[in-house]
């Protein structure tokens, strides 16, 4: 299928490109930018005038909930939400049921995703068996079965010795580790950031050290073992500082931040709305500022959605009894563009955090619009004013405080491997 | 004109009428109970004029009103004070203005929570002839009809006088 995307402003941060150019696609790959290749006759012409054409977004953390929790979401529904949000590649965490610690589950997910045929799903394998923090998983087998990295998916690894062995083993085979820094003891029983809001609401608190202690532990062990480490969804300013210091020392560590933490803080918990119950918790204004600064300075190279669809019952209870998480695939782009409005990032930098940045973390040849690569493309209208509503969302989950909010910037078309998978 | 009514003069007339009323019924040892606030002022005067021996009782009917959920709680409620047993006594209940009759009903309900009186005689300074319940005073100073939207109030305690208010539409 030959496709020509015409009239758009092509922004490709990896290639430092920002120009009005046409894009030519054939047999699932980008064959040219700018002038049409000789003899190119388009089967389909997509008019992108007034819009931005960029690489398909890469989301380092989106929960599809299948297998196991299909009440909350399925590969089909959440992939549909992904491509509606311009996300053509996403990593799904191993916290499925059964846990993604076997090649069978890894293949099952990829097969299902292929069947659905919307977004590219990259499974993250479990670092330990059953995510229990005890035994190493079959890391090499999982990698060969398609897992792009191994993760602990918010399950704390209590034994430091086990963590160290995991890193040493992973380092042997150059396996990437994507870890959530979380100290089991300090997190236990808590559901909100331990600060003034938590005191007023009487919620059990989680101190900042629940994250920073484990960040420090992971960094020092990574330094010792030489493993490639990526820290997921940081929530504290102090964590950013620790990562920056380690990066400056030459440790091979990257980090991402989930989009809600850039706009919300613990003050938003006022009123006990379970929409704001997240893991890690939303911390205070200084932490929010610190995360924004970490993005701007380049310590944090990727923004992810951390999409977690929930069924109504999981969110309709007193705060501490609700499950954490919010949906985010369809609001990822407009919220990232808000960072440009807020002068945290330039437009080029913002798109980089959603494309080349996450691609580099994973070490994959994605997230750019060079000739010869897979034609994964996101076309969006940066001026479009819209809202995500219960009726229009494609995700099974409705749990987001941004539901019905005024958003600017909307995806009009997404392509995966040269095939249109979403049109507005 | 209501404001020109000489309340003290009326009281003397009412005291006489009440005495005759009680005599006809052979009531020799009544207890007087005034309904806060206006009724209490009147009851004090009557108590003196009649030379009643038993102490004066005071009823606050705020908690017995039938419309409290509509007009809200009155926070400034003073407790009722009946320094005698009402069981088998002849009670003289005194209020300033009778309009719908609901205040009297509330007062009767409260009175009966304290015990079972032998009889209740109702005395009022004014009857506005706007009954919503079948309650009539046994001894009345005067009857009066007000124009729509008008309200009358007894002010006191010294001197006791009536004022007329126009309720805002």
């Amino acid at each position, binding site marked *: 299928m030959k496709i020509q995307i015409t009239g758009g402003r092509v922004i490709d941060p990896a290639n430092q490109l920002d120009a009005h150019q046409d894009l030519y696609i054939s047999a699932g790959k980008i064959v040219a930018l700018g002038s049409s290749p000789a003899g190119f006759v388009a089967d389909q012409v997509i008019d992108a005038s007034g819009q931005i054409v960029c690489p398909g977004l890469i989301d380092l953390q989106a929960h599809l909930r299948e297998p196991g929790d299909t009440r909350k979401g399925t590969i089909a529904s959440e992939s549909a939400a992904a491509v509606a949000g311009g996300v053509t590649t996403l990593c799904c965490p191993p916290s499925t049921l059964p846990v993604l610690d076997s090649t069978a589950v890894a293949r099952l997910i990829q097969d299902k995703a292929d069947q659905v045929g919307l977004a590219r799903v990259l499974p993250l394998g479990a670092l330990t068996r059953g995510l229990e923090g005890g035994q190493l998983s079959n890391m090499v087998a999982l990698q060969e079965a398609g897992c792009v990295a191994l993760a602990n998916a918010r399950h704390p690894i209590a034994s430091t010795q086990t963590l160290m062995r995991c890193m040493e083993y992973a380092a042997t085979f150059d396996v990437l580790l994507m870890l959530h820094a979380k100290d089991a003891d300090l997190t236990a029983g808590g559901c909100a950031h*331990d*600060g*003034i*809001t*938590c*005191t*007023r*609401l*009487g*919620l*059990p*608190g989680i101190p900042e050290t629940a994250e920073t202690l484990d960040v420090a532990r992971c960094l020092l062990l990574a330094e010792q073992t030489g493993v490639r480490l990526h820290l997921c969804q940081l929530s504290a300013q102090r964590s950013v500082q620790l990562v920056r210091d380690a990066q400056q020392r030459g440790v091979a560590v990257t980090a991402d931040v989930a989009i809600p933490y850039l706009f919300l803080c613990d003050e*938003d918990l*006022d*009123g*006990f*709305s379970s*929409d704001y119950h997240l893991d890690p918790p939303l911390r205070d204004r200084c932490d929010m500022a610190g995360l924004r600064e970490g993005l701007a300075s380049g310590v944090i190279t990727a923004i992810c959605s951390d999409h977690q669809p929930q069924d109504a*019952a999981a969110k*309709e*209870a*007193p*705060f*501490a*009894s609700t499950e954490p998480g919010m949906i985010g695939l369809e609001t990822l782009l407009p919220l990232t563009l808000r960072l440009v409005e807020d002068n945290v990032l330039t437009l080029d930098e913002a798109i980089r955090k959603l494309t080349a940045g996450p691609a580099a973390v994973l070490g994959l040849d994605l997230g750019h619009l060079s000739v010869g690569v897979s034609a994964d493309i996101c076309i969006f209208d940066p001026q479009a004013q819209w809202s995500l509503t219960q009726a229009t969302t494609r995700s099974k989950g409705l749990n987001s*405080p*941004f*539901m*019905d*909010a005024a958003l600017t910037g909307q995806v009009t078309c997404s392509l995966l491997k040269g095939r249109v998978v979403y049109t507005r | 004109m209501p404001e020109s009514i000489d309340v003290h003069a009326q009281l003397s007339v009412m005291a006489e009428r009440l005495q005759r009323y009680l005599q006809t019924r052979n009531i020799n040892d009544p207890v007087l109970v005034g309904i806060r606030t206006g009724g209490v002022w009147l009851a004090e005067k009557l108590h003196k004029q009649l030379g009643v021996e038993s102490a004066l009782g005071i009823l606050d009917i*705020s*908690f*017995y009103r039938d419309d*409290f*959920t*509509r007009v*809200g*709680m009155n*926070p*400034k*409620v*003073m*407790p*009722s004070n009946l320094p005698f047993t009402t069981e088998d006594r002849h009670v003289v209940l005194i209020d300033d203005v009778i309009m719908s009759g609901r205040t009297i009903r509330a007062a009767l*309900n*409260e009175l009966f*929570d*304290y015990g079972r009186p032998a009889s209740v005689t109702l005395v009022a300074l004014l009857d506005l002839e706007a009954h919503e319940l079948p309650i009539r005073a046994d001894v009345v100073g005067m009857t009066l009809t007000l124009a729509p939207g008008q309200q009358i109030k007894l002010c006191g305690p010294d001197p006791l006088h009536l004022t007329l208010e126009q309720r805002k539409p």
Partner: protein
Amino acid sequence: MTKLTDPTQLQLTAGGELRHFLTTEGASRELLREILTTADSFVDMNSQSVKKVPLLRGKTVVNLFFENSTRTRSTFELAAKRLSADVLNLDIGTSSAKKGETLKDTLQNLQAMASDMFVVRHHDSGAAHFIAQHVTPDVAIINAGDGRHAHPTQGMLDMLTIHRHKGDFSALKVAIVGDILHSRVARSEIHALRALGAGEIRVIAPKTLLPRGLEALGVKVYFDLAQGLKDVDVVIMLRLQLERMSSAFLPSQSEFYSLYGLTRERLKLAHPDAIVMHPGPINRGVEIESEVADGCQSLILKQVGYGIAVRMAVMSMAMSGQTRQAAALAETVR
């Protein structure tokens, strides 16, 4: 961003009257004063021979206790009965919730019973607020304690005690001693004291029992009991749960008592006319010396009676507010 109503506004009608009583936080001085004045009249009434008034006659009050508490539940029951209400006691902690029924489902089943008021105690902070948002709008919710968040009727009965025995709040130094971290009573007291304009609010406890950010609430933090008690007019002792020792908050009861226990000696550091209060039940020899608990400065027993009066006040005010709200809505529909 869609946001649920914050509890301080949820409990008021459009006209600013009480329709639920969920928390003392954010309540105006006028509202709290109204509760105190109303409670005053009920205190006077409770000492008379006729203790019952028909304010809630024909209304059904349901005690929904997800957390056991015979004491608190009995005072609410007594308060409701003195208002002539019909009372139903549901100890949910022992039935449906154990069977895994969600709170929302429990509420929907209860709604069928057409009650007018729920008095709720629950182990989760924000539970009373959640219930207020998920029942039909004409049901009044009285928070009898939700997690660590609030116990507003206890807070107000403590305020009533202070009001009746000490008068003007602005001249008072009030100290709250003990496990502030886990205490919903302390939180409700602090918010009420602030709203009523208390001169100085102090908390006295070791760091392990202090929550973050109290200074931002206008509270002075003391680690030393002697310093903290100096010249105070009101001493409120909090109950120390015995499990604080086993979960690594404190080394032992004896050390706690030696450092933070209110003894006669220590009480002398306070103002000679200082009053001693405790939400109960007291742990003699743990947070308070027997002689102090039973002594002339102690108002601990009086607090119980005030508790009934405050609960009668709050229940009648909330029922009144709800009924007026429903009437106002009916008007607008017409």
